[in-house]
């Protein structure tokens, strides 16, 4: 790659060329981020009429708030289950579709959910899961299973996990399918000639060669549950019952927008920002070393 690198004679021009992008990032990322950072050290009334600089009090309050710690746990659990569900199902579907001669129809249908807005997904699942109006509770009642996510935290958690995984399956499917297509046919053909079973081909050839994709998807799915889960949670449970489905992002919203506790909410968003930056750096470092994806 090195031989293709372009070296500008004028040292200013490259910076000028990225200026528009920089302006946008400054306006929509750095400026609000700096404001949040500053605000996280203030105790303010919602209207900004009086504010006191209180150093790390907001951080201390946040980190000793038992509901903050429980939302951290919820976030980790969501990440784990959603990543596990959506990646394994995505991989299975991709493997099945990959072996077909005629893939287009399946491909389109499986990718379709990804095109839906998170809010729409939330409404769809709301109608499926609603204890009074929904289809699922009716089916479950035939097996005398009581479905009430409005009161039972575990059911609410399961409901949000399913709703969020469903959408992410499409995404994982797409990347896995591309990953599978990138594996040279000669490898699998050689294995078949050598008499390997399908299972052996999958576990000894396909799976290791998909590792970079898996790693990439792992980070993407974790980022997804960290940030894109808001719509579904807002539509399905509002973080309840009793905080059972409240993750970090939802708590920022609940404390800041509903509770109007801007300092505490800013402190939380700074913490999330640090986590996201950490996760991204981690990903960059490892994907660069792998040299793929």
């Amino acid at each position, binding site marked *: 790659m090195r031989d293709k690198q372009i070296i500008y004679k004028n040292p200013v021009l490259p910076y000028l060329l990225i*200026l528009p992008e920089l302006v946008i990032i400054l306006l929509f990322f750095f400026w609000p981020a700096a404001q949040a950072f500053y605000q996280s050290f203030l105790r303010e009334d919602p209207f900004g*009429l009086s504010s006191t600089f209180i150093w790390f009090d907001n951080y201390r309050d946040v980190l000793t708030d038992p509901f903050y710690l429980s939302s951290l746990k919820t976030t980790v659990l969501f990440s784990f289950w959603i990543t596990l569900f959506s990646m394994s199902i995505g991989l299975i579907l991709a493997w099945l579709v990959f072996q077909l001669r005629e893939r287009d129809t399946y491909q389109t249908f499986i990718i379709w959910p990804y095109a839906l807005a998170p809010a729409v997904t939330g409404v769809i699942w709301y109608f499926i899961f609603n204890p009074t109006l929904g289809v699922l509770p009716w089916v479950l009642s035939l097996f005398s299973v009581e479905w009430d996510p409005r009161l*039972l*935290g575990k059911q609410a958690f399961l409901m949000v996990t399913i709703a969020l995984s469903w959408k992410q399956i499409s995404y994982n499917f797409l990347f896995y399918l591309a990953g599978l297509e990138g594996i040279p046919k000669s490898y699998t053909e050689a294995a078949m000639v050598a008499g390997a079973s399908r299972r052996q081909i999958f576990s000894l050839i396909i799976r290791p060669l998909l590792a970079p994709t898996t790693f990439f998807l792992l980070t993407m799915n974790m980022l997804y549950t960290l940030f894109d889960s808001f719509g579904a949670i807002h539509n399905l449970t509002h973080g309840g019952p009793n905080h059972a489905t409240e993750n970090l992002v939802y708590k920022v919203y609940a404390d800041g927008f*509903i509770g*109007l506790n801007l300092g505490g909410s800013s402190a939380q968003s700074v913490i999330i920002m640090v986590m996201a930056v950490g996760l991204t750096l981690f990903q960059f470092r490892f994907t660069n070393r792998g040299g793929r994806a």
Partner: protein
Amino acid sequence: MKSKVTIVMVLLSLSVLLWSNGKQDGPAAAAAESKGPIEITWWHAMGGALGEKVDQIASDFNAGQSEYKVIPVNKGSYSDTMTAGIAAFRSGEQPHIIQVYEVGTGTMMAAKGAIKPVYEVMREGGVSFDPSAYLATVTGYYTTAKGEMLSMPFNSSTPVMYYNKDAFAAAGLDPENPPRTWEEVAEVSRILVDKGVVSAGFTTTWPSWLMVENFSAIHDIPLSTKSNGFEGTDAEFVFNQTLVVKHHEMLAKWQKENIFKYGGRQSTAGPLFNTAEVAMTFGSSAGYSGYRKNCDFNFGTSFLPYWASDVGGIRNSIIGGASLWVFEGHSAAEYKGVAEFFSYLSSAEVQADWHQFTGYLPITYAAYDLTKKQGYYDANPGAETALIQMTTNQPTANSKGLRFGNYNQIRDIINDEQEAIFSGAKTAQQGMDDAVKRGNELLRQFEKANG
């Protein structure tokens, strides 16, 4: 070289454009520039049919005179509207009028410097304004200890009991004689469930508003010290030491026996009643027209029940809903327009129409009388229940309303703990103790931020 200069110019002008776009002229400047009527913006949270009614009120006012033009803007849910208003104030782009729900009242009242009290707006606008013309139980919520009205009541409702008359008849109960006490509610529910008419006896909407706040008001017991917060921000909750605990114990027990069925927060329990899964529900009087549209059975309204074992009857219930606040930072001419509009909004005709259309309470005695005269209650007997419940008794310190900062979050906390109690995760005492503890923490936070 020339092309580089062009690029630089283009980029610079682009960034200047971006910056200047971010800065918009304030509403005051915009109004001064335009030659037409003075524009008054009104941010509200009324969706659907209610939103259309709001538009109609504004356009009727605009058609009646040419000096002012009220522009209503829907900003989404109550909390969206409030957050939008606060954000707008912080960036100097606040509307003239904003609708804020009753749990935001404490926050708005504390925001001196952001809010222009309604009594001031009316006085400076030179509009005749008599606070005693307004329903005491409604304005009490929005008035200072000195009797100064800070915001204009707009849509106020109070909860009542709705019951399914057809279900009562099917179970052999008298459909014209709904239960008045909690003892009777339980008894009637058992009969209804045993006869297989419904799967559970009753549910409730807005669980904290109904089963803690209004429950306390009608039983004349305090929610907190300092007259439910009216006498200072240093109030402390006490509802873990009152009848509220026993009531939740019973609700939790009833939840297991299918006498009570929890239906979620806010008004999500509504469909349980619409689909006749339960025979009774408790909810806002403003839900009346909605139930009339969605229920394909006969239903009636009645008063909130009380524990006959503990009290002899009920006091008044308290209100929910929202009021209109005026933001600081506009011109005297614009405030005069606001005053004129509020005066129009309070007129008996507008209020009577609003009350009859929506089920919200009329805010003046004149509007109540006009509605009576028009024969509306004879045609819709269920619609008067709320008013009788609100006006029969003189409010006490426990039934005047509540005034807590951060109450929006505190109500969520109470909901949390109620859910924990109903699901059996906590006992009623534990749940209410935790609600009081967490609630007090938020009260102290508010006290610090506003003290």
